[in-house]
C-alpha cells in the first residue's frame, strides 16, 4: 500500500458480539482491512470455538485454540459480564463510540440486555448493526439452535452431497459457516458505503439459511420451473463427462472434468487417442454423458495402469508384453500432462498438501502470526488481492480479555480506580 493511501476501514470501530464461525469471519474481513474490531466475550461462558480444538500441544485452554484463532486475526478482545449490574451500561458506553455492531445470537438475546438495535441507535443514530442467527429474526424456526453442521442439512447441502444411492453425508465441514459470511460481509460493506455517502445507519436481519440457498446453483429453479429435483451425483455432473475422481497408484485421487469439446479433444490427445474414445457414441457431449459408466471404466483402468508411486521407475516393462517399457506418471505428472493438453484436472489436496502448495505459497495465502500462547501459527488470508489497499493481518487472535484495560480505560473512559473496582467486583467476567 502506498503511503498516501489509508486502509479501507481505517477509523471504523466494530463491537463484535458474534461468535463461532459466521460472525467472526464477517468481522475478520473488516479487521484485516483496517477496522478496529473488538470481540466482546465472556470469561464465564467462553465462546464455543475457544473450547474446541485444535489446541496447541493438545492441551485445552481458552487461549490455545487454532479454530478460534483463525477467524479472529487483527482483532482486539474484551470480556464483560452482562449480568453484572453495570455490565450493559459499560458496553453501551463502548458502543456509543462504534460504527458497527455485529452479533449472531438466537433472536432476543441482545434485547434481553438492552442491546437491541432500537436501543442502541439512541446512543448512536448512524449505527450499522447486523444480526446473523441461523434462521433470521422472525418465523417459526427463529428460535432454533444449531451450527453450520446442521444448517448445511436444512439448506440443502447434505441432500446435494454424497452418492445417489448413499446417505446425504454433507460436506464434512460446517459448510454454511464458510459460505454465508461472504454474503453478510457484502451486505454490511454495501451498507457501510451507503452510510459513508448519506450518514445513515441501518439494521440488517441476516438469516443464514436464506443466504445459503443462493449457493445451491440451479437446484431451486430446476424444481420451481421444471419440477425436477436435483440430487447428489457423487463426482458426476449433469452437464459433463467424464467428470470424476480417479485413484492413482500412490493412493491419492485426481479429479478430471471435460465440460467442453475442447476439453474432450485435449483428453483424447493426452491419452494417446485410445480406440474407445474415438468411437461414434463418444462424439458429442450428451452422448458421453450417456456413456458415463463406460468412460469411467476406461479412465479408472488408465489411472491404475499409467500412474506410479514416487519410488517406482518412470519406465516400466509390462508383464507378458513384448516391446519397449511403458511411460508411467506420478500423480503430479498426470496433472501436468492433462493440463498441458488443456484438460481441467487437479489433485484432491489434503490439508498437508495445501500447506505445501506452491501456488498458495506464491499468493501468500497463509499468514504466519505470532501469538503469545500459541506461538507462530498459520492463518487464512482472504482469497483476493487488492492491488492498492491489500489485506494486512496485523496480529494474532486476542487472548480472552486481552484488551480490557485499553478499551475500558482509553475508550470507555474508566479511571484506574473504577477499573480496578469493577474488575474486583466481577464486571469483566
Amino acid at each position, binding site marked *: 500500500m502506498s503511503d498516501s493511501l489509508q486502509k479501507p476501514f*481505517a477509523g471504523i470501530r466494530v463491537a463484535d458480539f458474534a461468535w463461532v464461525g459466521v460472525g467472526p469471519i464477517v468481522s475478520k*474481513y473488516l479487521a484485516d*482491512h483496517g477496522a478496529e474490531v473488538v470481540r466482546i466475550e465472556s470469561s464465564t461462558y467462553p465462546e464455543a470455538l475457544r473450547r474446541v*480444538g*485444535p489446541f496447541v500441544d493438545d492441551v485445552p485452554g481458552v487461549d490455545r485454540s*487454532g479454530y478460534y484463532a*483463525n477467524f479472529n486475526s487483527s482483532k482486539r478482545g474484551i470480556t464483560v459480564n452482562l449480568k453484572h449490574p453495570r455490565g450493559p451500561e459499560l458496553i453501551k458506553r463502548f458502543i456509543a463510540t462504534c460504527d458497527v455492531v455485529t452479533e449472531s445470537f438466537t433472536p432476543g438475546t441482545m434485547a434481553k440486555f438492552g442491546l437491541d438495535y432500537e436501543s442502541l441507535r439512541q446512543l448512536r443514530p448512524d449505527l450499522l448493526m447486523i444480526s446473523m442467527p441461523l434462521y433470521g429474526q422472525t*418465523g417459526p424456526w427463529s428460535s432454533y*439452535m*444449531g451450527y453450520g453442521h*446442521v444448517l448445511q*442439512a*436444512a439448506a440443502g447441502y*447434505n*441432500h446435494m452431497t454424497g452418492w445417489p444411492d448413499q*446417505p446425504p*453425508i454433507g*460436506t*464434512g*465441514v460446517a459448510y454454511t459457516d*464458510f*459460505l454465508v459470511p461472504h*454474503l453478510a460481509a*457484502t*451486505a454490511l*460493506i*454495501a451498507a457501510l*458505503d*451507503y452510510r459513508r455517502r448519506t450518514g445513515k*445507519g441501518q*439494521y440488517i436481519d*441476516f438469516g443464514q439459511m*436464506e443466504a445459503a*440457498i443462493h*449457493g445451491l*446453483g440451479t437446484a*431451486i429453479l430446476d424444481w420451481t*420451473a421444471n419440477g425436477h429435483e436435483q440430487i447428489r*451425483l*457423487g463426482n458426476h*455432473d449433469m452437464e459433463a463427462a467424464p467428470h470424476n*475422481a480417479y*485413484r492413482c497408484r500412490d493412493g491419492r485421487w485426481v*479429479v478430471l*472434468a471435460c465440460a467442453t469439446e475442447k476439453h474432450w479433444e485435449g483428453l483424447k490427445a493426452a491419452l494417446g487417442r485410445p480406440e474407445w474414445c474415438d468411437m461414434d457414441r463418444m462424439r458429442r457431449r450428451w452422448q458421453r454423458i450417456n456413456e458415463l459408466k463406460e468412460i469411467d471404466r476406461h479412465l479408472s483402468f488408465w489411472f491404475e495402469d499409467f500412474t506410479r508411486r514416487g519410488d517406482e521407475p518412470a519406465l516400466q516393462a509390462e508383464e507378458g508384453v513384448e516391446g519397449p517399457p511403458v511411460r508411467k506418471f506420478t500423480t503430479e505428472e498426470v496433472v501436468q500432462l492433462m493440463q498441458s493438453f*488443456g484438460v481441467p484436472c*487437479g489433485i484432491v*489436496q*489434503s490439508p498437508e498438501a*495445501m500447506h505445501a502448495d*506452491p501456488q498458495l505459497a506464491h499468493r501468500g495465502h497463509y499468514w504466519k502470526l505470532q501469538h503469545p500462547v500459541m506461538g507462530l*501459527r498459520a492463518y*487464512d488470508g*482472504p*482469497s*483476493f*488481492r*487488492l*492491488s*492498492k489497499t491489500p489485506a494486512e493481518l496485523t496480529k494474532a487472535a486476542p487472548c480472552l480479555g486481552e484488551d480490557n484495560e485499553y478499551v475500558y480505560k482509553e475508550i470507555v473512559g474508566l479511571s484506574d480506580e473504577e477499573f480496578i473496582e469493577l474488575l474486583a467486583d466481577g464486571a469483566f467476567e
Partner: protein
Amino acid sequence: MNPESPPVPLEHPAGPLAGYRVLDFADEKGQLCARILGELGADVIKVEPPRDGDPTRQNGPFFKGETGPDTSIYWWTMNAGKRSITLQPRLEAGRQILRRLIAVSDIIIETNMPGEAAPLGLDYPSVSAANPSAILVSITNFGQTGPYAKWHATDIVGQAMGGLMYLNGDDEHGPVRVTAPQAYAQANFQAAVGAMIALYARGVNNGIGQHVDVSMQEAVANAMDNAQQIWDIRRINASGPGIHRNNNGVRGARYLFETADGWLVALQVGGLIGPGANAIIDWLAESGEARGLDSPEWRARLTSMQPLPPEDTRYVEETLAAFLRTRKKEELVAEAQRRGAGWAPVLSPREIVESHHLAARDYWVRVHHEDIGESFIYPGAPFKLGETPWKQRGRAPHIGEHNAAVYGELLGIDAAELRRLKLKMVV
C-alpha cells in the same frame, strides 16, 4: 408501463449500491457476484458476444429440457435482473466502445485466463487508462500469477485443489464433491466482498481504482473449517468422515440418522453424548425407548465428555437410530429443539421451497417471464437491510436486449450508428 410486461431489470433506486454501475464479462466464476451487486441496487450490464450471446446460455439444465439461448435455467439463475448488451472487444471498434463504457462504470468483473484479458482491453492497465477510478475484479482459477496461474479448472478442480473435497466423502468411496458447484459459489461470493472493500477504499481515498485479483482455489481453501489448523497444530490430515463428524481430525460421533421420512442431523448424537445429553435421554425414557441409557451410571458417563469405548458408542448410536427410524424428521427436530438440542432436517430443494418457516418470513419471490407467459419462484432476500432493501430485479435478459437503451442513453450512440456497428459485428 404495461404491468403484463415489466421492464428488465426492475428499477431499484433504494438499494445501497444504487448509482453504481457494474460491467459483467464473467463466466460461472463471476456472474452470481454481479447479480448480487445488482440486487443491492447497482446497474449491472451483462456484456455478451454478438449474435450467439454468452456461452453460458448453453449451460443446462434447460426449461422443459429444450435447449436455446433463452431457456437455460443456469442463465436464469445467475443473470436475473441484469441488462444485456452485445459487444465484440476482439475488434478495435469494440474496444473503443468498451473504453467508453468503462469510463462510465465503477466495477468491471472478468474471468479470463491470466494473460487473455489484455487483448480484449480488460487487463488492469487498459481499464485504469479508460477510468482511473474503475475497480477491476478478475476472478480466475488460481489467481493472476504463480505456477498454476494458467491451469485449466472447472468447479470440481476448484473443490479438489482448494482442499474441500479431501474433507468430504468416506473411506469406502473416496473423496466427493458437492454436486451443486461450490468452488464457483465461493469464488462469486468472496469476489463480491473484494469488490465491496475496493469500492469502500475508493470512497475514502479520493476515488482511486484498483485491481482485485481473486483466486477460486483460495476461495475454497477458506472453506476448510478447522482442517488447516489441525494440520498446522496437530499434523493430522482430517478426511471425509461420511455420516460421522470430524473431531480435531479424527472420526467423531455419528451425526446423520435416518427417520421415517428422510434424514436428519443431530449434533454429537443429538446431545446423547455431551453435557446436554440428559434432555435427550429424558425424551427416550418418556417414550420407553432409552434401552437403559436412563440409568444414573449411563447418564454420568454420557454427560462426562470422556470418550466412550467403541462398543458403547455403537450401543448409544443404535438406540438413537432405532428411536428416530419410526418418527418423522420435522416433528423430531421441533421436539429436539424444544428440549434444547440443535437438530435440523435434511431438506431437498422441494422441501426447502415448501418450508413453512421461509413462507412465514415471506422469503420467496415470484418472477414474471412475460416472454413465455409464465412466472416462477426464485430465492428471495439473502439479507434484509432495513433502510436499503435487497430486491430481485426480474428475469434474465435476452441477448442484447438493452443495446438501444445502454448504447443510446449511456453513450449517445444513435439508432443509425448502432445499425452500422451491428453490421460490422461490433455489437
